[in-house]
């Protein structure tokens, strides 16, 4: 059995989107350092349930850092601020006994709080619906060398494709901008032969959809890149900027 921690948790509790929330303080003793952050919240919820209180609502699914469901601001940092770590992969060994941990939902006007730490990320889905797909039928998996893809472009597409849509970039951005998320999708699809056909209309439509949903503008602070659990690079934003400019002036998109 590992070391144990005694913690004070200040958690944002909010009944629903329309109610005003507040921080509630909970003392949680005897937390295993080997527990993940979500497991620590499970222990708290167990305790709350047994005492007849409402458990803290938080979103989660795979708990392996690959689905993008979990996420919250922990001590003011998206996903807790550890390098390339989702909240479920953040472990309690990063905390000390006696720590006060402040847990707040991701905040953006476009991502309203549903309950406690759960936010509605449909706005990101709407951005995908506006162009984050390819319309041609690609059929079943083809022979791998039938369509040749340059190695650097394949790498770029693969890196961009690792975005899990967790919205930490929006949460960390001082302007609540969705540029990193959108650029990852635009660059991922636009770098590959199947996706490049629609690249111009895709970048125009997805950029417009960001604004429609009320996300802010990029001010090149790069806090999104620092917060991204998948290490998505801001070079994707530069590429999207370039493609947008080219698409709007009817130029062919550069590679």
């Amino acid at each position: 059995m590992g070391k144990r921690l005694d913690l004070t948790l200040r958690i944002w509790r909010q009944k629903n989107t329309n109610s005003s929330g507040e921080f509630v303080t909970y003392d949680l003793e005897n937390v295993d350092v080997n527990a993940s952050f979500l497991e620590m919240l499970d222990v708290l919820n167990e305790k709350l349930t047994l005492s007849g209180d409402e458990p803290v609502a938080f979103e989660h699914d795979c708990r392996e850092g690959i689905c993008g469901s979990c996420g919250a601001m922990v001590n003011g940092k998206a996903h807790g601020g550890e390098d390339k770590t989702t909240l479920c992969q953040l472990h309690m060994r990063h905390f000390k006994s006696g720590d006060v941990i402040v847990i707040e939902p991701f905040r953006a006007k476009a991502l309203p709080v549903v309950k406690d730490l759960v936010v509605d990320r449909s706005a990101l889905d709407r951005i995908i619906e506006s162009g984050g797909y390819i319309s041609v039928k690609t059929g079943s998996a083809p022979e791998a060398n039938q369509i040749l893809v340059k190695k650097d472009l394949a790498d770029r597409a693969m890196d961009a494709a690792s975005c899990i849509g967790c919205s930490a970039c929006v949460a960390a951005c001082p302007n609540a901008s969705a540029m990193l998320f959108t650029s990852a999708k635009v660059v991922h699809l636009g770098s590959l032969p199947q996706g490049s056909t629609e690249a111009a209309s895709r970048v125009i439509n997805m950029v417009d959809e960001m604004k429609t949903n009320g996300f802010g503008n990029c001010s090149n602070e790069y806090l999104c890149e620092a917060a991204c659990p998948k290490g998505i690079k801001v070079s994707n934003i530069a590429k999207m900027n370039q493609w947008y400019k080219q698409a709007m002036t009817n130029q062919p998109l550069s590679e």
Partner: protein
Amino acid sequence: MIKQYIQSQIGKKQLVAITGLALILFVMFHLSANLLLFLGPDYFNFFPELIHSTGIGLRVIESGLAAVFFLHIGLTVALVRQNRKARGQQYKSVDYSNRSIATRLMPYTGMILLLFLAIHINDFVLQDHSGVKSIVGGESLGLYGLVYNAFANPFRVGLYVLGVFSLGFHLSHGIQSVVQTLGYSHPKYTPIIKHMSRGLGVLVAVLFASIPFYFSYMNIVGCCYVS
């Protein structure tokens, strides 16, 4: 299409970047002309006299600059307003300790620059270049004399130093931001551009600031170039 571009988030940013780039080039040009101050009135006054002799040409350049300047500000105000609205409910606990100070202060250094520019235009552009304020040692030294007399006042020296350091700060984020916003990114060159951007910001501030300090010193020791 143009309307959609201007209304879009990226289009606005890119227009801010392009107008910013034009203003950076103007600042560089202004700085190189200013450095002629160190060579004395004969060398320095040549340039203002030359542009004033163009008459209508000067008005065209001034109007163009003003248009670029107000476009830069107007678009930025629109962007910042959208940004302020985009958060909705504010964070109670957010940790921005890794935020760059120059970036964070962009709207504020911009506002200081606007005020500074108004004072600066009133000090040098709107004054009679051969009037009473340009007389040093009984002789009018043109715009050089105006500068010489202006920096006899330590308060104005302080004001100008604050102004040019706001400019340096603004540029240290601005130059690298132009490159990113116009869509250029490279694994090797982007970090170099970031360093150059910061270096250039400091350099511009220090070189501009050297002028009020120099004239403040000249006023104290009471010497000047009388040709």
